[in-house]
């Protein structure tokens, strides 16, 4: 079993905005592309053109339908669809690390990123079993456990322009729903967003203390339904001369 560091200097992570994620999977495939070509073994695909294609992904988007409860205002509130991207949350108390029998899984002291040292990994899968989020997958071709690296080979990479030193999922996200930064710094962009928007831990009851946060969707379908006497819709054609009379009068004022 493997020890976690006592503390980390920073807590790098993602803040994912469920209010704007349109479920397009751009992050999923960008991640697949970068991490196939870069850190560790490529993310392989089995039966790639066959009956049951199944490959390794470090990030997946699931969609959940939500049926809000009826209220006195809204007897039949419409159902909603929430797109939910999910990858490793780089937990402070990462059970996937402590369960690792070889020390291959570890949490970095300087930034809190949880990684797998593939040369020490025996692919036993205990970490995947221990992770309550289902964020680890075994690569069937390489026989090692794969997980989000927070693009550790991008975020410090001096061969990239500074603006590109972010995880590839963040760089590619078309709707700007993914944010990257240091959640240990209360003044960071991600910490401020989390505070402003009520950012949440995923399944806090598991005691994993995830670093990544989710911004909840804003209330939906809140436009009040209104009757005929709405202030903005007061009819002008009740005036003498009706609509054309109003037209004449109003044109005079232009």
């Amino acid at each position: 079993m493997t020890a976690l560091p006592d503390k980390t200097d920073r807590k790098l992570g993602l803040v994912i905005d469920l209010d704007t994620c349109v479920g397009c999977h751009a992050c999923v495939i960008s991640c697949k592309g970068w991490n196939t070509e870069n850190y560790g073994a490529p993310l392989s695909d089995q039966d790639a053109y066959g009956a049951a294609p199944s490959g390794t992904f470090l990030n997946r988007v699931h969609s959940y339908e939500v049926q809000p409860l009826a209220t006195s205002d809204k007897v039949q509130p419409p159902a909603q669809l929430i797109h939910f991207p999910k990858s490793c949350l780089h937990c402070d108390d990462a059970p996937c690390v402590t369960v690792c029998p070889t020390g291959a899984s570890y949490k970095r002291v300087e930034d809190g990123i949880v990684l797998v040292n593939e040369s020490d990994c025996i692919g036993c899968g205990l970490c995947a079993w221990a992770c309550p989020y289902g964020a680890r997958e075994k690569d069937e071709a390489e026989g090692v456990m794969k997980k989000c690296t927070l693009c550790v080979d991008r975020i410090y990479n001096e061969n990239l322009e500074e603006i590109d030193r972010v995880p590839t999922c963040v760089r590619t996200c078309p709707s700007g729903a993914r944010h990257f930064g240091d959640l240990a710094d209360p003044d960071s962009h991600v910490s401020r967003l989390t505070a402003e928007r009520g950012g949440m831990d995923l399944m806090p009851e598991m005691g994993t203390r995830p670093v990544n946060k989710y911004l909840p969707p804003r209330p939906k379908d809140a436009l009040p339904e209104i009757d005929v006497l709405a202030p903005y819709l007061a009819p002008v054609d009740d005036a003498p001369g009706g609509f054309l009379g109003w037209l004449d009068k109003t044109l005079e004022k232009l």
Partner: protein
Amino acid sequence: MPHKQPTLNLSPKVSDEVRKTTCYMCACRCGINVHMKGGKVAYIEGNRDHPVNKGVLCAKGSAGIMQHNAPARLRAPLKRVGPRGSGEFEEISWDEALDIATGWLAPIRRDNPEKLAFFTGRDQSQSFTSFWAQNFGTPNYAAHGGFCSVNMAAAGIYTMGGAFWEFGQPDWDHTKLFMLFGVAEDHDSNPIKMGIGKIKARGARVIGVNPIRTGYNAVADDWVGITPGTDGLFIMALIHCLMKAGKIDLDYLARFTNAPCLVNSDEKSPEYGLLLRDPDGKELVIDRNTGKPAPFDQKGVRPDLAATHRAAGVTHRPVMHLMAERYLSDDHAPEAVADRTGISAARIRAIASELARVAFDEAFELDHAWTDFRGEHHTKMTGRPVSFHAMRGISAHANGFQTCRALHVLQIILGTVEVPGGFRFKPPYPKPATAHPKPHCQATCNGPLDGPHLGFVQGPEDLALKPDGTAARIDKAFTWDNPMSAHGLMHMVISNAHAGDPYKIDTLFMYMANMAWNSSMNTRGVIDMLTDTDESGDYVIPRIIYSDAYSSEMVAYADLILPDTTYLERHDCISLLDRPICEADAAADAIRWPVVEPDRDVRGFQSVLCDLGARLDLPGFVTEAGDQKYADYADYIINHERRPGIGPLAGWRTGEQGLTAGRGAPNASQIDNYIENGGFFVEHIPKGANYYKPWNMAYQDWAVGMGLFDKPLPYLFSLYVEPMRRFQLAAEGHGDRQPPDHLRERIRRTMDPLPIWYDPSGDNRAEEYPITALTQRPMAMYHSWGSQNAWLRQLHGHNPLYLPPNLMRDNGLKDGDWATVTSPHGEITVPVLEMAALNPNTVWTWNAIGKRKGAWALDKDAPEATKGFLLNHLIHELLPPKGDGLRWANSDPITGQAAWFDLKVRIAKAAPQNQSKPVMKPIKSPVGQGPDNLAWKVGK
């Protein structure tokens, strides 16, 4: 075990080189950085400098590496050796392939050019392919707009000189209320996602109107789950509420639209319903300064919206009067449409009220001085921060044109088009219908056509009819059946050619159009037409040439295959002459270039046309000496001039003093200049010229300087579309060119110059088939190309039919059950899944996931080929027979747009199945099957 941390190389080399080109994984045309390692494509990301995507990239774009390396790529020209549909081919050389093509096409051109039908599908080089067809001389050319979104495009151009997507965009920086209608999540995909993200970050409201709540509608603040096909009713109810409350921008309507133009109101006049014009043909308005008629664009004129005018004994009423008469009627009140639209009257009012509040109470001003076309100087620009977007959802109905018109009218009465915060055109738009070509169809043996094929008719005189009144075009575009078919009717080509109606053809030549599968209505029937033989055993459609990069279903049905390259192996231009990539603040165009050379015996289709054009001695493709004029497409892109100084690319042309933008002579290094700049060119519109474009002289002058047009073209928005009235007049018996009697009533009813709504469901037998069935394309996938992509197919490998809870319950269905779906035309049996965020009378599925066994290099047991299915089997290109012996197209009667979304079905529980039905027999793959496993790392 104690904590131990290996030392990592945190700065690994990313790539040897970055090559910047343009994506082609969908029609969005984003800039991409292709990272190369050892001469191979290693990784693709978005180009931060690019005007379309500004660095972001969707799932398709990032999966381009799998597309480029797909096992389904064709490898060499193919000649059919078995019967059509068998998939039996032999590989041949390019010389042989081009000899065969020349041998078929040269006699057609010599004897009767109309015997060639040349239609291109998702072609992004239409200004080139149409140029080729025009030089060949056939009247039978179009791309895929007729089965896609021509209603939106044509309604926009006729109404205001442009529509959405390529034509314009919301003012994302200022808009506060964004309303989108029926948007599938594909076209303009990244810019819309970026825009939604941007405006939501500042707390703007998004209202989504769509029977299905996915994608953009899932993140909308308010979702309006409208009954399919009733958008026009809903929009006109909004117009009713806004007009009734006087929440319309009268100043804008008076200055910039034809609301003050004068309509002949004498029912007995042969010009009844036409606009009063001066001898120069300019629309007249009553000038409030003088009370007298004056040309609309005269200096200092203040058009009156209310005054009527009597001329030569005929009363003329302003369009505004007709608008009031039509839309203030209780027929358009929310209560009158609530049941049909499925939206409560209170909700319709709430939305109208919110539109009014934001447009008028949240109006703002920008300190941009500008001068309008009447010479009036304005110190500020008034913003109305309401914007709209719509695409195929409201288009692909038989009432789609009028519905799209209604949406444009709604934007215009709010005064929110081309103003800050509203909807803004992208150059070369705005461009009114009158500034576009008219259709041309006059074929001459061994000569070019008399002009461009496609265009915008202004009246019956512009229809593409032969002297005997029959259709000049195989697709019957620009006929009385669908007079304003600005994009042609690709979905009717095979059906009409097979029926010999209006005539037989010899060769069908297609590019990137999977007509034997998901791009056709009535897939099974189309396959039968492609393989049908006459009494002598010859194919009814004698010859078929097809170009595609991949082993699509269509390949098996062609006689000669010209294999295209992948998008990373080719030259292309995304041209201002065509479907450019401009922004509201800039003109822009882009190229593709071969970032890798093909490793197969394939050639870019456009380069092949340069070669074939020369072999056929086409005027635009040979030099005066008779030699091949353009060595390849790149040569054409650089050296072709459409007008003097105007070529396919606007950037880095040769000016009198060095390189210049817009107008200029060809520059031999132009493509290199593009490559150096990241694959694109952008020229910004000066501040003060970038709003009010149709009327802003600074913009008009800038556009002339750029070569977008040759003289300033200020014009009025057409709330009232006069050309439509001209067709009605003909139907009422006026004029020499008369419609056939069986179409008179329909033309009179549908070609109304003010937006109307009519119900197409009766034609689709909604009484017996009460449920609407729709398709959407997933954001992560786009038409056929996704299914063979090893990464994307893991996201959407098969497609259930989604049913709302009430329909699941009524039919005793639960998730994973199978249901038979029946339309007036056919039947399919498919797996179902419940979805609550769905209109209660609508079912839907993802489009084009289902694949034919043997196609796309997929295993015959691939889920796409077993569980995946197409709704196309349920949709016929013709309406159910009406008993009158006529073939009525399942299309919009104005534009001919394919009415995909008018499909009506009924549903019944079926026994569990192993495969979706119909099961079609496998076709033999000309490329074999893909490998089992992938571990794709090119760098070591």
